[in-house]
């Protein structure tokens, strides 16, 4: 009994059930007129302690001691990923979300930059919402290497004890944060699409898709710090930077481990993007009629910063390599935007792209199956719509 995270005083309990609705873990139930704890479900979040109007529920002191050390952790951090000095957009998106979370939590928002010749970025990060920027500017950090980056961030965590740390769910963020979390022996929620601070427990509520986007899960890290999450790029909007914002830049000099691997060549350009990882896919099917028309798709994809995907019909016709094929025998994709031009929506195709956040389909057959899962379905001639859309996006860019 004494080992349960919370203690219910049966003398004081009046059976009002307020604790039951307050508990986020379903860890309480009624036995007659008495609230009873399911200890194996309880996560010691203490929501019930606060909810009980009769002071019948108290936190176990032993658990409370642990809580106290948790309260040493303060502030929200955003890992500002940069490539060759250029901070990635997702860091700015996270700072705008971070501001909202910091306000709800009543705490500070900081950015962390690891790299070489990156100190200039601090001003941008402050303008984007950071109160503080921790900068580690050393040659060993010029290129991302998992072990060196993990070492650097974990040293900062140990020194400053942030309560929450966020990173973009990029190739770098997802891999290296998983190491950081293990080293810090804390939890990490992957690829989140929504974040909020719970009003009762002050914990970070992290919502993410799983099963290829077919289900959503809300996850918390109640008893470990920092609470860590990677966040999918382009989910949150950037706010306009305010160059007048004031903030503090803290330079940190660290003694770092040596790298386990080294990059000998980096061929980075948008054209190489693996469609399975892409955020925006402009896809076409047999409705394109011939290979040359794929050029139009490519043009739109380039304008939007996306890549070209196709149905198997296009691959079978020899218009494009199989690495672009979406579907059961191609790639499974879950981009933010999937634009489908002249694709009928065969089950084998849908299987590979139904996890997309937003599906826009253009097809001249009102009965095309693709319309069944499209967020926006346009009945129309792609040869009319596509050039107009390219023009409209170009015009937008010029303004």
């Amino acid at each position, binding site marked *: 009994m004494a080992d349960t995270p919370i203690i219910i005083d049966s003398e004081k309990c009046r059976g009002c059930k307020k604790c039951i609705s307050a508990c986020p873990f379903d860890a309480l139930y009624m036995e007659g007129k008495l609230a009873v704890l399911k200890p194996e479900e309880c996560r010691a979040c203490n929501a019930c302690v606060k909810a009980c109007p009769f002071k019948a529920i108290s936190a176990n002191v032993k658990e409370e001691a642990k809580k106290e050390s948790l309260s040493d952790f303060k502030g929200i951090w955003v890992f500002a990923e940069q490539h060759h000095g250029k901070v990635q957009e997702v860091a700015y998106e996270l700072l705008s979300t971070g501001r909202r979370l910091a306000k709800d939590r009543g705490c500070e928002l900081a950015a962390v930059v690891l790299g070489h010749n990156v100190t200039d970025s601090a001003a941008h990060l402050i303008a984007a919402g950071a109160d503080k920027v921790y900068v580690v500017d050393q040659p060993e950090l010029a290129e991302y290497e998992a*072990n060196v980056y993990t070492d650097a961030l974990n040293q900062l965590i140990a020194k400053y004890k942030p309560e929450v740390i966020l990173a973009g769910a*990029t*190739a*770098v963020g997802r*891999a290296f944060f*998983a*190491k950081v979390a*293990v080293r810090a*022996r804390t*939890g990490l929620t*992957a*690829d989140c699409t929504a974040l909020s601070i719970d009003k009762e427990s002050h914990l970070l509520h992290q919502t993410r*898709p799983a*099963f*290829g986007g*077919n*289900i*959503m*899960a809300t*996850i*918390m890290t109640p*008893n470990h710090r920092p609470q860590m999450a990677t966040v999918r790029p*382009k989910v949150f909007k950037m706010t306009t930077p305010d160059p007048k914002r004031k903030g503090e830049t803290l330079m940190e000099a660290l003694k770092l481990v040596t790298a*386990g691997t*080294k*990059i*000998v*060549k*980096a061929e*980075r350009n948008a054209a190489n*993007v*693996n469609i399975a*990882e892409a955020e925006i896919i402009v896809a076409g099917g047999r409705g394109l009629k011939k290979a040359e028309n794929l050029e139009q798709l490519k043009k739109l994809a380039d304008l*939007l*910063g996306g890549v070209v995907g196709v149905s198997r019909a296009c691959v079978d016709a020899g218009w494009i390599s199989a*690495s672009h094929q979406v579907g059961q025998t191609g790639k*499974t994709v879950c981009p933010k935007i999937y634009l489908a031009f002249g694709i009928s929506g065969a089950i084998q195709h849908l*299987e590979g792209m*139904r996890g997309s956040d937003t599906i*826009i389909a*253009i097809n*001249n057959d*009102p009965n095309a199956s693709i*319309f*069944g*899962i*499209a*967020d*926006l*379905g*346009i*009945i*129309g*001639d792609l040869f*009319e*719509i596509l050039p*107009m*859309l390219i023009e409209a*996006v170009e015009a*937008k860019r010029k303004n």
Partner: protein
Amino acid sequence: MVDMTGGVFFCFNGDTEFGGRPARGQERGKAMHIIVCIKQVPDTTNVRINPETNTLMREGVESIMNPFDEYALEEALKLKDAHGARVTVISMGPPQAEVILREAMARGADDGVLLTDRAFAGADTLATSYAISQAIKKVNAHPDLVFFGKQAIDGDTAQVGPGVSEFLNFPLVTYVKSVKISGGTFTVETQMDEGVDVIEGNMPAVMTVVKDASTPRFASLGGWMEAKKTAIPRWGAKDVGAVPDMCGLNGSPTKVVKIFAPPTKTGGTRMDGRDEPDAAVEAILKMLQDKGVA
């Protein structure tokens, strides 16, 4: 409470010793030892949620080897073909996960281990990485390479490979699409967000493999016959010396508090753009802007 391993139940706590046939390369002297971690997952990600209980409905869904893990296995088998190596497959899961280990052996893996124990149930990626790294240490404290799939199609976190690299204290390379080795060093191509990197390092290392790697081979009939003969030991938490506090639900800092169906795509707005293509283009543009694109 949601079972974090995705509804699997561990109920066998065996203590069979590590078995398996010796690899061809090994008989000739010092050969490489490659470990591949494979997960059993539902055959489709198209799972439904029971609206009353908000739990996953898995009835009637077949299980398969995680598709990314097939690519990881293929990279290991290609290295075995080229240089001679012992390839060991490890899976953590319920007793029925044994079939994917057999399948991997039928394709050419030399031996396999099943980590199965109720104590592992409900593990998040920290507890999963810990359990798997303990098993790896028991199989061989000094393997040359440890392969993972890029991610599992159910949990979708892509965190277990990096997590294991941390517990083993091995260098980590993620999103690998091809591997070459020479002496004690490796050269790999990795698929990053904006292109391909070439990375070098010394073994041992942990690598996670993407689907652009070589097409996985099929199991041969002979392979299946051979695989059936090999015993697959089942190890529990005690067998791998795992501390109970770091296993399963107890060892998992993250808690899934709720699962729910995403807003269903029953077809959203439909527009006839045949007469008014301008309005249609406008609607597309607006949607793109709302999503932060264009």
